[in-house]
C-alpha cells in the first residue's frame, strides 16, 4: 500500500466505498463525502459479499466498513483491502470500540478505527486524515491500545521496532485523556504532523506485534 501515491485505477477525486448495513447511517456518510468536492462516494453496500464484490469492481481508494454486517464481519473486507493491488485503505467504523475488535481490525490492516458517533460528524475529516497518510485515533481506541501496551511484558533490550517508544506511549496517553492532535502537539512542543507520524508508527507497530493480543490475554489471565 503506497498511500501517498495517487490512485492508479481512476483519474479524478479518490473514490470512497461505504459498507454499512444501517441505511440511514450509510446514506448520511455517503452524503457527507459526496458533499466534499475532492472526494467521490460509491453507492453504499450493506453486506460483506456485496462489499467484496464492489471492492474488486470499483477499486476504491478508501473503504469505510462497519464490523457487524448481516453476513459476516467487516474484518473480511479489511483483510481484502490489505491484499488489494492498488492503493487502498480501510477504516473501520463501529458503534463502540471493544478491545478485541480494535486489535483485530488493526492486525487485519485497518488504517483507522473510528466510532460511529464520531464519524457522522467527521467522516470527511477522517477520510482526509487517512488520505494524507495519517491515522485517526479516538480517545477510546487510544485507551485500548494503551492498555495493551501496559499489559504486554517488558520488551527485550533489542526488541526493536515492535515496541512503542516512551514518546509514543506519552502521545497515546494524552490522546486517551481526550487531548486532540493539536493540543498534544502544543503540550509536547512538537508539530501536529509529528504527532500524526507518531500515531502512524503506533498503528504500524501494533500491527506488527501480531501476538500482542495473545500476550495481553495471557497477562490478563495471570499467566505471565
Amino acid at each position, binding site marked *: 500500500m503506497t498511500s501517498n501515491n495517487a490512485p492508479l485505477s481512476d483519474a479524478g477525486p479518490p473514490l470512497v466505498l461505504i459498507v454499512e448495513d*444501517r441505511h440511514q447511517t450509510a*446514506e448520511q*456518510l455517503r452524503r457527507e463525502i459526496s458533499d466534499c468536492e475532492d472526494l467521490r462516494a460509491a453507492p453504499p453496500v450493506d453486506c460483506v459479499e456485496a462489499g467484496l464484490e464492489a471492492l474488486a469492481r470499483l477499486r476504491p481508494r478508501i473503504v469505510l466498513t462497519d464490523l457487524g454486517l448481516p453476513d459476516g464481519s467487516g474484518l473480511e473486507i479489511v483483510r481484502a483491502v490489505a491484499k488489494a493491488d492498488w492503493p487502498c485503505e480501510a477504516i473501520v467504523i463501529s*458503534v463502540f470500540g471493544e478491545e478485541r475488535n480494535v486489535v483485530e481490525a488493526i492486525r487485519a490492516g485497518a488504517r483507522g478505527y473510528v466510532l*460511529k*458517533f464520531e464519524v457522522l460528524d467527521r467522516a470527511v475529516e477522517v477520510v482526509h486524515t487517512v488520505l494524507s497518510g495519517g491515522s485517526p485515533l479516538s480517545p*477510546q481506541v487510544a*485507551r485500548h491500545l494503551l492498555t495493551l501496551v501496559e499489559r504486554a511484558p517488558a520488551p527485550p533490550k533489542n526488541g526493536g521496532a515492535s515496541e512503542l517508544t516512551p514518546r509514543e506511549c506519552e502521545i497515546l496517553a494524552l490522546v*486517551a485523556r*481526550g487531548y486532540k492532535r493539536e493540543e498534544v502537539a502544543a503540550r509536547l512542543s512538537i508539530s501536529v504532523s509529528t504527532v500524526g507520524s507518531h500515531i502512524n508508527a503506533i498503528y504500524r507497530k501494533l500491527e506488527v506485534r501480531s501476538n500482542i493480543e495473545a500476550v495481553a490475554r495471557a497477562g490478563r489471565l495471570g499467566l505471565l
Partner: protein
Amino acid sequence: MSLRARALQLGLSGLFVLSVLGALVVLEPGHPQVQPGADMLSSGTLCAQADPMMPCAGAPVTLPFFGPFSGPEGATLRMEFNLPSRSDAAQTGPMALYFPLFSDGLDVFVNDVPVLRTAPPGGPYWHWNRPAYVRVPGALLNGALLNGALLKGGDRLTLILHGAPRFETALMPVHFGPDSVLRDRFAWRRTATLEVARLGLGLTLLCSLAMIALAVVRRRDGVYKWAALSGLSAAVLSLHYAAQRPPLPELVWQVVWTVSVPLLVAALHRFIRRFLRRPQNREEHLSLAFVAVSAVVMTGIALWAPHYVLIASAGIHAVVLGITFYLLAIFLRDRRFTTRGRFLTLYGAMCITAALALHDALFLYPRPPLVAMQLGQFMPLVFMFVTGWLVLMQLVTALNRQEALAGKLRQRVIDRSRALRRTTDRLEVSERETLLAGERERIMMDLHDGVGGHLVNALAGLRQAPHSDPQLREVLEQAQTDLGLMVDSLYNPGDVVVLLGALRARVEPLLERQGLRFDWQVEENPRLPDPGPSANIDLLRIVQEFVTNTLKHADAACIRVQTGARHLCLADDGRGISPTEVETGVRRGHGLASMRRRAGRIGAQMSLTGGAEGTVLRLDW
C-alpha cells in the same frame, strides 16, 4: 554440677541400694532352719582321710562348713555324720537326704553304700549354688531293718566333698527326714536357684535375639545393638548360674563370665542413655574402657597367675559395683530427661540389681558369710525386665503417638476437606458472579451495539430530513451520549481521566456545532473517595450536565475542564449563573439538584458560582 550434689546423689543411690540389701539380709532367704518333721545335721566328723573305705578318724566339724581354698587340682574332703534314728519310720514313709548348698561336688554314702554322686567320678565339679536331694532306700537303714530297735552306733552318713580347683569347699547343714517333708523344700530351692538361672538364660537369649533383630531392622536407631550386647552379657551371666559344668574350659570360663558383668553394665548404660535420647558422655566411654581393661587383666591372670583368678574376678566385680553406684547417681541427676514412671522403674530395677550383686558379695567374701545363699541368678531377670519394659514402653508410646497422629491427620483431612468444600463453594459463587458480570457486560455491549447503532442511524436520518425536529435530535444525541458514557465507565473502572477523554470525544461534536470549544486541562487522575463505575458515572454525569447547561443557557465560547487528584473544576466563559438561580435551581431545571445529589454520592463538596466571567463548578473531595 557441684561435688556436694554429686555426693548427695551418690549417697541417695547408696541408700536405696542398701535398703533393698537390708531387706534381703533381714529376710535371709535360704537360711538353714530345721524343717518340721525332719532333722538337721549340723555336727559330724571331718575325717583325716578322704577314702570312704578307711575308718574315719578326725576332728569334729560344725555346719555350715567352709574349707580352705583348693589347689589347682581341687580338693577332696570326707565327713561322717550319724543319722538320727526315727521311731516313726513306718508312718512317715521313705526317708530322704536334702543338701541345700555345697561346693562343688558330693558323693553320698549311707552305711557305706553309695546313694548319690552329683558328678561323674573325677569331675568336673561345678555345683556351687544349687541343692541336691536323694531318697534313702529303706533297706539301707538299720532302724528299719531292726524294726524300731536301736542299733549301737545307728546309721552312718558319709559325704565326700569335692572342691573345684582354686575354690573352697563348703557344706551347709544337711537335712534328713521323710521324703514327703523334704521334697518340697528341695523343689523350691532348686527352683530359686537352677530353674531361675535356666529361665533367665532362656529369656536373655530370646531377648538378645529380638534385640539383634531390632538392631538389624532399625539400624539407624543405633540403640538396639547395645541392648543386644547387654542381653548377650546377661545370657553369659545366666549360663554361669545355670550350667551343670563349666561351659568352656574352666579358666577360660572364669575370664568370660567375669568380663560379662562389666560389659553388661556398660552396654545397658549405653542402651538406656541412647534410649532416653541422651548424648554420649564420659562415663559411657569410661565404663566401656573398663570392660576392655578387665578383659585384658583377666586374660593375663588366667595365663600367668591362674591362682589369683578368683581374687581378680572379685576385684573386677567390686569395681563394677562402684561404677554401678556412680551410674546410679548420674541417672538420678538426669531423671528429668525421662518421665517420672520410666525413671522410677528403671532406677528401681537398677537399685535392685546392685543390691543383688552386693548380696552375692556378702555371701562370697566374708567367712562365715553374712547371708545364706547367692541370688545373682535373679540379676538377668531384672535386666530382662528393664530392657523388655523399655522396649514395650516405646511400643506403647509409638502406638499412642501413632493414634494421636492418625487422629490429628484425620481431623486435618476433615478440616481440609471442609475448607476445600468452602473454597469450592466460594469459587462456584465467584465463578457464577464472574460469569454474570461477563454476561452483564456482554448484554450491555449488545445493548449499546444495537441501541447505539439505532441511535446513530436515527440521528443520521434526522440530518438528512430537511425539517427535522431539533429537540428530537437533541434527545437522541443525549441518549447516545448516555449510553456511551455507561459503556465507557464499565470499561474503565479506575481511570477517571480516560473517562473524561472519552466523554470529550462524545460531546465535542455537539459543542462544535454550537461554536463551543473545550479548554482541556486534564492533568492528574482524580482519586475519588470511593472509586468504581458508579462513582465514575456520577462524575461524568455532572460534567455532562454542566456542558448541557452551558450549551443551553450560558452563550459561552469555551468550557474549561481541569482536574487534580482531589478536585474537578469546570468553568465556562458565558453568562454566569446568578446566586438566586444557584439557590433555587430555577434556570437550570432539575439538572442542578441532580448534580448536587450525584456530588453527594461521590462524597464530594460541590460549589457553583456565577459571575461576569461565567459559571464555575468545583468539586472537592
